[in-house]
């Protein structure tokens, strides 16, 4: 891995990873917030 280390490739991958970071965290929060909403709704509909 380090024998053929290329700063240019590593830096390009790093920049791509930042995009994945932004989109990834957004997707996770989106999914979780939808589940949060659904759970809250269920709690109201099926109150014991």
């Amino acid at each position, binding site marked *: 891995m380090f024998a053929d280390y290329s700063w240019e490739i590593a830096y390009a991958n790093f920049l791509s990873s930042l995009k994945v970071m932004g989109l990834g965290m957004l997707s996770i929060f989106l999914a*979780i917030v939808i589940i949060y909403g659904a759970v809250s709704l269920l709690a109201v509909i*099926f109150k014991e």
Partner: protein
Amino acid sequence: MDVLISGIASITLPQVIMMLLGGLLIYLAIKKDMEPSLLLPMGFGAILVNLPLSGVLNQVMPGIGETTGIIAWMYEIGIEAAEALPLFLFIGIGAMIDFGPLLSNPRMLLFGAAAQFGIFLTFSLASLLGFELKDAASIAIIGAADGPTSILVSNIFKSNYISAIAVAAYSYMALVPIIQPLAIKLVTTRKERAMEMEYNPKSVSRTTKILFPIIVTIVAGLAAPGSISLVGFLMFGNLIRECGKLDSLSKTAQNVLANLVTLFLGITIAFRMQAAEFLTFETLLIMFLGLFAFVFDSISGVMFAKILNLFLKKKNKINPMVGAAGISAFPMSARVVQKMGLEANDQNHLLMHAAGANVAGQIASVVAGGVILRLVPLLF
């Protein structure tokens, strides 16, 4: 005579080192009680696959041709083909989890999401260190504190480092009681750790408990289709538990299935612990990156709680340590938070809050795995 000593004569130093490493894993499992159900089979498997001309691996025998080794076969069928073993284990884990504490306090879901940030931070760091994107993503998932997800993601990406990733993921899960207190203390004051939280759980209806796994599966499947096998099998196990009609299957999934799969998973993963593949500088680096991911997942959970507290009324404020329980290591992480809360203030009982965040971490970590599986291939 040559035939008799051929095994001894062909042993190499790296193989000896790997067998010693196998012995160390067995020692840690038995003496230190570190994830014994997984580290012991892995340790023994490491010895099996590193014996010269080992019959548990595929070999070419003079006069016979190629023979199939049992561990090589188990790896091909149980992991390589469709990740069956990690997914079967998820059915058992799903059947074990009580989502009650989360459903009665659903805001804890947010901590599950926040505590996945370390995964992406590690992905960036590993990329910068020169790992290929598929390997960097596989390494980063160690931070999910979720062994089966780590194995599944690294296998789908055909990472070259699956064995090191599996060892790191399960070792750090076992080290949660040591790593997390250090990470939490780095970013909290004693006063923050002593902060009490009221616990007024709402009752949760049976219908809600039954609908929850179905809804989570559909939402996670739509948001991250790559996670559907993970989430689906986890939630299938939970549905069996909560439906109230399949008690026998639920108990089987929790005990027999989970134990059986764990037994085979450890020894099967050891297939990738062959000396030539495992004894590299990259393995050391992966161990470091796994630790980095784990620490920053905990820290990001704590920081998220602190940020949230800026907007909450005093009576609703959250003890920042609860955020750290948003990782998937269940129930160790919740216990760590409870213990640290009591150390700071002997009236501070955080277990139920932390348990809610902890099971949220189970859901969020598999969603994170799915998100990584969906987004990273777009960069190839």
